[in-house]
């Protein structure tokens, strides 16, 4: 499977997009840990789809835009990207931050979309159910909270980041804080408009997610009554790292069955 890197100039910034595979268009919106961390999943998805993986504005190798103030700016920007690349019948797949962006896009317009898949998605807050926090705890504690299998976290922590990786980490944290500091990783107005998403929706969750506990999946199910749900067993929040095979299979199976 060959991966092509593309840079497009749009709204005053350079957006980096990786492309792989062929078939129906799947736009993968990466999570807190960036596009590189999702390769195990996106490369599998590329066996069935034309997969596009942008680095979000202000993350990875995409520039920090001057206009980025809220999560809504991400949503309108990606609607512009869909127009710019003239993409249609797009399957949106988003992990945590990316799931939140997918929902913010879809409540605004489903015109160019075919389905939405959420993986351990951010975007809502369930009162009384404590969720993970990216900023209050030391980075290693935060990382461990993402995994059911401590050995997986240990393996990542054993790696000393290069200077370039350190720079990207600082930049990613800035951008996540920009849109997700307060209220933490949620838009309290999002839940009011989720009924606008007139598309097949798939909610995927690790059964042992300690970052967004399973109660968050239940709340999404309540707010999106037509949605299908898949629980990945023995898996924490980092589904894309802990169970990439099961995740890719679940994503593809849902689209095959409900959104072809």
């Amino acid at each position: 499977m060959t991966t092509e890197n593309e840079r497009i100039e749009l709204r005053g910034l350079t957006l980096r997009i990786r492309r792989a595979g062929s078939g129906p268009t799947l736009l993968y919106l990466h999570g807190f840990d960036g596009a590189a961390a999702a390769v195990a999943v996106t490369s599998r998805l590329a066996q069935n789809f034309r997969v596009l993986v942008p680095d979000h504005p202000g993350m990875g190798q995409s520039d920090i835009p001057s206009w980025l103030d809220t999560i809504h700016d991400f949503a309108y920007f990606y609607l512009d990207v869909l127009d710019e690349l003239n993409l249609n019948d797009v399957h949106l797949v988003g992990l945590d931050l990316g799931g939140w962006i997918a929902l913010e896009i879809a409540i605004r317009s489903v015109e160019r979309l075919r389905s939405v898949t959420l993986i351990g998605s951010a975007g809502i807050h369930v009162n009384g159910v404590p969720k993970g926090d990216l900023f209050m705890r030391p980075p290693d504690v935060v990382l461990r909270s993402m995994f059911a299998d401590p050995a997986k976290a240990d393996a990542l922590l054993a790696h000393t980041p290069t200077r370039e990786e350190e720079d990207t980490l600082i930049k990613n944290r800035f951008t996540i804080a920009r849109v997700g500091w307060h209220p933490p990783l949620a838009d309290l107005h999002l839940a009011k408009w989720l009924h606008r998403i007139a598309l097949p929706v798939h909610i995927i969750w690790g059964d042992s997610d300690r970052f967004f506990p399973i109660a968050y999946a239940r709340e999404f199910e309540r707010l999106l009554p037509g949605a299908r749900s898949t629980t990945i067993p023995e898996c924490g929040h980092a589904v894309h790292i802990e169970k990439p095979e099961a995740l890719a299979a679940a994503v593809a199976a849902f689209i095959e069955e409900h959104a072809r």
Partner: protein
Amino acid sequence: MNFFYFHFMPYLHLDPKIRAEYDSCWMVLPNSAYDPKKGHELYNRYLDELELGEELGFDGLCLNEHHSTAYGMMPAPNLICAALARRTKRIKIAILGNATALRDHPLMVAEELAMLDNIMGGRLICGFVRGIGVEYLVWGVNPTFSHERFHESQELIVRAWTATEPFAFEGKHYHVPWVNIWPRPFQEPHPPIWTPTNGSTETVEWAARADHRYRYLQNLSAADACKRYMALYRDVAARNGWEATPAHLGWGCPVYVAETDAIAMREMKPHIENFYNMFFRNPPHRFLPPGYMSLESMRRLAVDKIPVFGPQTIDNLVKHGVVLCGSPETVREQLAHNAKDWGFDTHMGAFHFGTLPHELTVKSLSLFAEHVIPYVRHVNQPSPAHPSAVH
């Protein structure tokens, strides 16, 4: 020289065993560790110690603002200022607080400060701050907007103070259709604005703008950083087309004076080490949340691995010139030397720090007032060529 006296007002009855269970006494230490009866005594002790500053001949008192911490019991410095306003007659009060970026509405700050300036007949100095990183966590305020909100709120406050007709303020973070505060400040055009900082290029750039010329106060820093940032302030001022004088610069540091150098070192040691190691410490991820500093500064910190978070000893603090400690002779020599070498005319001494008891606080204050101030007073006095822009 002008001599200001700074009080942190810490909750010094912290049980070290309870303190040791937490990585910081900010944010995470539960307030069950605070005993209101002891707090009541401390507030009154500290207010007495501050009032003593006027009797002893200091030019000003400094208050600050910190939240959710035993480091200081002063989340609302304007209240402490109000308590001092009518118990003092001459002395200036510099509030190195009002972290406007953390507050909902800058106009409330503008009004409170205008009230205080009126009550005190123009003795107020306003040292606006951004608050420290951890305060953005405890208040849920987004640190990536900290600089924007700091700048915009100050612009609104200064315009609200100086406008004599209602006006509309059209900002990104504050949008007010009809600004018209009552009362307006006593001082014309407004109370002096100071910029206290631990040192940053961004802060120098802000304070040394030609339309600001705010006094830049380098606080709790190593001597070489103090000298470097004060020189940078003069350079930036020159680049902006104006000449900075000692009246635009100040230095803040913990001070302890005793009969001899040896006594001073011995008596200061446990309390200043408690200040740094027990009260000041914060883990890096809470001290520097994303956006609190520019990305460039964050990168530099990450790359240089600057050891700002390790434990401190008095020997190290003295060696790096962070504190003034010694006999009156030692302290006056060091202070006069720094004032001339770095070019500032205002010193801000933290005469209380950590767990320093009342008797030692009063002894050190009195020795400084009697045996240091008169000897250093003449240094960097304004001359006709360089009249003070501040007082």
